[in-house]
């Protein structure tokens, strides 16, 4: 797929309209994963607008969103950047063989107290 087609797909999946963004940066300012990300939430918004989907798909930033909905709640324009991060991650993990977390990696992550919730969430985020 070329970038233009992928952009359309991301917009359809997420329901986000990047043109609503006024580039205030509040989403990135409130993001708890900011330091861990190469591209920050506001950059997802304008890079989707510019159609740079391939760059975003290749970035480890897509695995750093905690799904905390802070950017969704606090964006003054209701852009909902987290939905773009999610759509782009899905574009990657929906490809054959592109699961980010594999079942055989799980035993090494376990300790006696780790709640099931952490594992099912990681699987939902990282695999198809």
């Amino acid at each position, binding site marked *: 797929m070329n970038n233009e087609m992928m952009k359309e797909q991301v917009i359809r*999946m*997420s329901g986000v309209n990047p043109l609503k963004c006024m580039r205030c940066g509040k989403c990135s300012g409130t993001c708890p994963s900011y330091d861990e990300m190469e591209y920050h939430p506001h950059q997802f918004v304008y890079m989707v607008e510019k159609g740079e989907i391939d760059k975003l798909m290749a970035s480890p930033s897509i695995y750093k969103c*905690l799904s*905390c*909905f*802070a950017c969704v709640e606090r964006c003054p324009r209701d852009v909902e950047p987290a939905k773009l991060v999610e759509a782009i991650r*899905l574009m990657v993990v929906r490809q054959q063989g592109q699961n980010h977390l594999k079942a055989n990696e799980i035993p090494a992550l376990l300790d006696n107290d780790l709640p*099931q919730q*952490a594992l099912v969430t990681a699987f939902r985020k990282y695999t198809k």
Partner: protein
Amino acid sequence: MVFSYYPGCTLKTKAKDLDRYARASAEALGITLNELENWQCCGGAFTMARDEIATKLSSVRALEASRETGLVTLCSACHNVIKQTNHAMANDEEFAMKVNNYMKLDTPYHGETKVIHYLEMLRDVVGFDKLAAAVKNPLKGKKIAAYYGCLLLRPGKVLGMDNPENPQIIEDFIRAIGGTPVIYPYRNECCGGYMATEDKALASKKSTLVMDSAAENGADMMITACPLCLYNLTKNASGALPVYYFTELLAEALGVKE
């Protein structure tokens, strides 16, 4: 009052206390929680993409089975996933059409079920004044930090539980059981969540910020409704405050903690 009740996977395993004390307390308050038959795991996170159908079906099944009774959730994650799914069933026609087309229900489902979190049940069904009157062992002198985290309140417009930026439901709960709530800036910031699996350093950084903020503001202890928050705060934060499920303090206050 009788409600259907959705415990979720973690309340059956690592977070049995959250569940056990909730059931005992509800009973003491005259509410029957009927565990849904054959409930399935909610998946832990709401898949935001509109074309994700299969990942939301377990929530729709729980919702659909609770049309008559209403549904009570307890784990913050289940609450978030199930409420967001219900909202999508009521407001996203194309999504609801695909789900109904697959499920072939006798009566198509469009988000009719009322879902409430256990805390909303205490506030809106029991009433915090009635709860206060039922307290046998008030938690006098205890300075308690309510930790909301992210999943209990956001997105505020969808979950409709409380003001997402200045919540008060858990503070009101703390007052009702005789304790003193401690307000601190990080009470509705993320603990690091499921990043505890692949990036422990991040989970540790985030949960430490939360606990330090509670401690600096004079808390003796913290309470939460989320097993993953409890895990990150007790295992990954560097602070030493004890962290409890809110239902444990509730059971203690009501004198039904065994």
